[in-house]
């Protein structure tokens, strides 16, 4: 009975997250590192995401209206001042792949009226499409604006015959009126985790990758299990002196590039970006 459940587990129900050592006993905590120095802005990750996750291509007009559905987008910024050379302005271009940051304290989660979005035990920010009623509050409250709403009924025309045959059967095709977002390719993770559980082990590092990490030609995206201290991602987080449960990172020396975006909003994202290194003299 729920009441006895409430009384028995009162302490755990009253815990705030994230806290130090939260994932010490957990098998998985998915995280990412994106090296902006390696990113060449080729958009391969975006294309891979479209293919993997059944994202509809909305067309030029709707894209212009701001109704695009890219779960991962390449943002292009132009440097200022010294970074911009008048001779080769393109040198000032910087790329930043933006996807759902899978925040540990996600602003989108507590505001959903129906609880369609919540935090999974492996540290992901979930979105349950068939529970969503489309209040769009999560998107309003997301500081990164990485949640995308199905403004139209895309299945009608996004995949004309025979394109529907290339849809991924492990991912729902979303109907109109539903919010969606990057899932860290949950279908891949789920399949891998189930397989590993049957075999009585946990997933090895690099055994499962997200589509974007897999497609990146420069390996700018590193994906892995942060709960596994020996994984590549965990080592990178450690080397970059980024702590999951801290909202500001103190670096011991100059030149450590790891940072998390909009950390001052206490969102505790799961994605670390590595600053771009520039040689302005060259």
């Amino acid at each position, binding site marked *: 009975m729920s009441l006895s459940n409430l009384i028995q587990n009162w302490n755990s129900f009253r815990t705030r997250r994230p806290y130090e050592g939260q994932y010490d006993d957990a098998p998985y905590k998915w995280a990412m590192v994106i090296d902006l120095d390696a990113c060449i802005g080729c958009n391969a990750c975006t294309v891979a995401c479209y293919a993997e996750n059944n994202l509809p291509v909305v067309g030029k007009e*709707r894209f212009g209206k701001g109704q695009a559905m890219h779960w991962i987008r390449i943002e292009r910024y132009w440097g200022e001042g010294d970074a911009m050379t008048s001779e080769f302005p393109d040198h000032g271009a910087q790329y930043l792949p933006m996807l759902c940051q899978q925040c540990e304290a996600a602003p989108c989660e*507590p505001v959903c*009226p129906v*609880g369609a979005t919540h935090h999974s035990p492996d540290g992901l920010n979930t979105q349950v499409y068939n529970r969503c009623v489309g209040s769009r*509050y999560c998107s309003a409250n997301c*500081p990164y604006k990485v949640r995308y*709403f*199905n403004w*139209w009924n895309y299945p009608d025309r996004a995949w004309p015959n025979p394109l529907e045959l290339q849809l991924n059967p492990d991912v729902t095709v979303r109907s109109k009126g539903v919010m969606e977002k990057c899932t860290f390719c949950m279908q891949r993770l789920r399949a891998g985790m189930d397989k590993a559980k049957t075999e009585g082990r946990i997933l090895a590092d690099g055994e499962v990758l997200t589509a974007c990490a897999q497609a990146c030609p420069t390996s700018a995206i590193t994906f892995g299990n942060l709960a596994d201290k020996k994984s590549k991602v965990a080592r990178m987080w450690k080397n970059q002196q980024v702590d999951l449960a801290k909202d500001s990172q103190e670096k011991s020396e100059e030149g450590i590039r790891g940072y998390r975006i909009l950390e001052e*909003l206490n969102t505790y994202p799961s994605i670390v970006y590595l600053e771009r290194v520039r040689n302005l003299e060259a």
Partner: protein
Amino acid sequence: MSHSVHSHPQLDVQVERKFIPKQKDLGADVTWAKINKDVLRSLEKPRPVFWVIFFSALALFSFGVYCEVYQYQNGMGVADLNNPQVWGLYIATFIFWIGMGHSGTLLSALLHIIHADWRKPIYRYSEAMTTFTLLTAALFVLVHMGRLWQFYYVVAYPNERWTWPNFTSPLVWDATAIGTYLTSSLLFLYMGMIPDLAICRDNARGARRALYRFLSMGWQGTDRQWANFKVAYMTMACFLMPLAVSVHSIVSTDFAVSQNPGWHVTSFPPYFVLGALYSGCSGIITLFIVLRYVFRFEAYMTQPILNKLIKMTFAIAMVWTYLDLIEYATTWYGSDEVAKADLIYRATGDYALQFWGMIFCAMVMPFTLLIRFVRHNYVVLLIISLILNVGMWLERFQIITPTFAKSHYPWTWTAGWWPSWVQWGIVAGSFGWFTMLFMLYCKIFPSVSMYEVKEMVHEQNMEEKALAAQTDVHEAGLVPEMKGGQA
């Protein structure tokens, strides 16, 4: 025990003070029978112009329904909403209508608690306004939903799926608060109307009589009924007063709880409550003038009452102005650079026209209420009360739109977003819906509380009598006796 003025000089002062004549809200010629006659006359067969306005409102509403159906079938995209601009006019107008619904209860409950009798001729239609604006606002919650056909997911009931709404979401607080408020104010309106429904029952024939007989539930005005009624009505007023405050402060948490620049403001709850009272009060003034003219309620909706109403509106407008300015001031002096940039953007960016329009309509225009000519010229007053409400609508618009246009993340900054005709159509339709409901109400139920105006008349007469008696005593040079002095 008997006191004399000569032995206790201070008592003389007390007696004098007790009978300082108050300003009369109603004329001396109003009798109980006249009240019945005048108010029941407003329920008679409407003039043709009624139907003209009614069907125009119906047409407007039908257009809104058409827009909604169009949106329902094609998706929210037809409203030209986009990724940062996810809410648009729907939420702005939702807050506007919720706000309109606040003053009816303030006027009725608060003024009832403090025994301010001038509320009596005007509280009934204000409460009806509350109820219908809430119904209109509830429509916007549904219109705004991406999957309207799944709206029952938000309702807390023990369902087969073992799922519950997310009780931490301000939208669920909203739904609960508005549900409570709608239920309570509907019951408050109904409860206060029972004696009047009995009057209607005694004077109606045919189907109307059957309706009133059913609704008045056998009210006969017996002393036991009155005693219970008074206790219950006061209890409900005491519940509704804090409820009205809580409802709009909960609506404000939709914004204040989120972390967008310009929304994450501590002073939002009182600011919203005052904004709600402000727009509600000017709505009451608008309807005051309209009803007074249409139903010839000059004897009840008098200038002294209007003056008090205007004074209240002005005071609320000033508090609202203060809270608005203090919000800007705290943002300006605070350390949140993004919020500061958002504030500057509001005043100078794409939506500067709306911002300064709001400042003019809602902050500058109330000062015209200080002019005697405005207070006494009903046409001018009507226009000004409408302008105040336009200002309050603009206020809601400029809370929502600029924040989305320029929030934390620069890559999503957009400029020049404008709602599509579907949104405007639905907003217009909501006005038609409200007008329709209110017009029907006015023709079915008494829009002035008969029994309470009778009480007012009774009290005025008693006062008159006491005053006359006192004057007699003074003229005759006799010693006045304190009330209860015989005991």
